[in-house]
């Protein structure tokens, strides 16, 4: 795998959300508006890059039996710094994201990349892998966030794009889009679209209907 592939593979082909179905919890919770989705994407991408780099740097000194504890400690330290940074400089946004920045610690995506990649690769590929996965995550989050904010409120980044019925216009916001289930539906449709474009991602069915043995049906 070339360095460039570490960065580009997770964007669509090996996307952490649509293929590996990781990090779903935050993808549902923070995508009601585009601005929260954007902030969360940046925060997670930074955490992924830094944790990948630090863990990769230390990988020869981490005893295998306690590696998960050490990985989590590193990730948690980085997340706390970012959380404090956001509370200091972007207080409103940090209130909107509430607990979800802190919950990056438990995001399967972060620990997954640390365990699967950073533990056995040099620093530069690990950072690039973190960046690639962060961007893949961000791509999905931004699509879901944009769709939910636009269809649910008629604006993007808080800027009204169309006039809603309540303000005398024609646009009827879809209330469902502001509720968590809509993120599931949009994610489902995204996974569907990606798998239509890339049929090799389609999973084999767990159960198959059996034809009767003598050929009668």
């Amino acid at each position: 795998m070339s360095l460039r592939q570490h960065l580009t593979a997770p964007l669509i082909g090996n996307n952490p959300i649509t293929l590996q179905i990781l990090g779903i919890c935050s993808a549902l919770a923070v995508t009601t508006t585009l601005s929260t989705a954007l902030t969360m994407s940046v925060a997670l991408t930074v955490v992924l890059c830094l944790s990948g780099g630090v863990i990769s740097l230390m990988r020869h000194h981490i005893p295998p039996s306690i590696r998960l504890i050490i990985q989590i400690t590193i990730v948690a330290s980085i997340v706390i710094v970012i959380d404090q940074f956001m509370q200091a400089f972007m207080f409103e946004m940090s209130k909107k994201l509430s607990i979800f920045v802190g919950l990056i610690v438990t995001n399967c995506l972060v620990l997954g990349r640390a365990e699967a990649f950073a533990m056995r690769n040099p620093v530069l590929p690990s950072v690039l892998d973190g960046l690639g996965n962060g961007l893949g995550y961000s791509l999905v989050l931004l699509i879901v966030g944009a769709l939910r904010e636009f269809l649910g409120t008629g604006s993007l980044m808080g800027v009204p794009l169309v006039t809603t019925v309540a303000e005398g216009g024609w646009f009827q916001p879809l209330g469902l889009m502001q509720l968590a289930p809509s993120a599931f539906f949009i994610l489902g449709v995204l996974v569907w679209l990606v798998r239509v474009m890339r049929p090799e991602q389609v999973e084999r069915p767990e159960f198959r209907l059996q034809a009767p043995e003598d050929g009668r049906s």
Partner: protein
Amino acid sequence: MTGWLLDPHRMRQRAGWTPGRVTLAQMVALAAPVGVKLVEQGMPMASVLVAALIASLIWELAFAAIRGRSLTWHSAGTALIIAILVPPATPLWQVAMAASFGMVFGELVFGGRGYGIVSAAAAAAGFLVFSFSGAGLSGSSQALALATLPGAALLLLGGLVSWRVLVSVIAVLLVAGFMQDGTSGLPETFVAVAFGLVFLIGDPVAGASTQLGRWVFGVLAGLLIVVFDTMAGPDVATAAIVFASLLASLFAPLIDHFAVALIVRRRRIAHG
């Protein structure tokens, strides 16, 4: 020829239920309720019906074409139920959108009728309530409840609705109603739930599929109706039935899982 009668595939054929005939039976059962609604509400109801039918059929046609399957026309039955649940004043594009949502996310993405988890009509009604502020659902009337009865009898005789589900839901509602205000409100409660009970909660696709599980499913659905009901007195809000149906459907596979485990255990103890 050995085992001819015991071949499950052959048995299913002999029972005579092809997808087309299931659709037909459902349409016949729905004819009277739809007729009553048309008389009660006139042209607005007719246009809602047409919008729901067109949207549902387009999606069924599209998916049948993509997947190379034959049509079962089951979407028409779903559209009729949606048309009865939706108030006639609803803008037609909202009806079409709700019907599309119900058809696509309620059943077609899972592979069509019989493969989904929830009732497509209930999904459509739920979408309508959540999406458009102020959108309620159409209430029931005595005539609608009475018109539901012959259809319910037909579906029960054909085995397309489980009597266990109906009986257990009604039993829970009876007990709850009795505890609240004696026997006086029971006819009203029955009028309010009759249609939704038969066509949403009774939907065999969305319910449990073991006999034991159907009792539990019915009790759960009945309790959920009682919990969700926002109306004072014996009347029941249609939305309560829709959401009870949706939530109970989600539990149906779990209920079945435990029912099967119980039956297996019992047989193991009995037969060693």
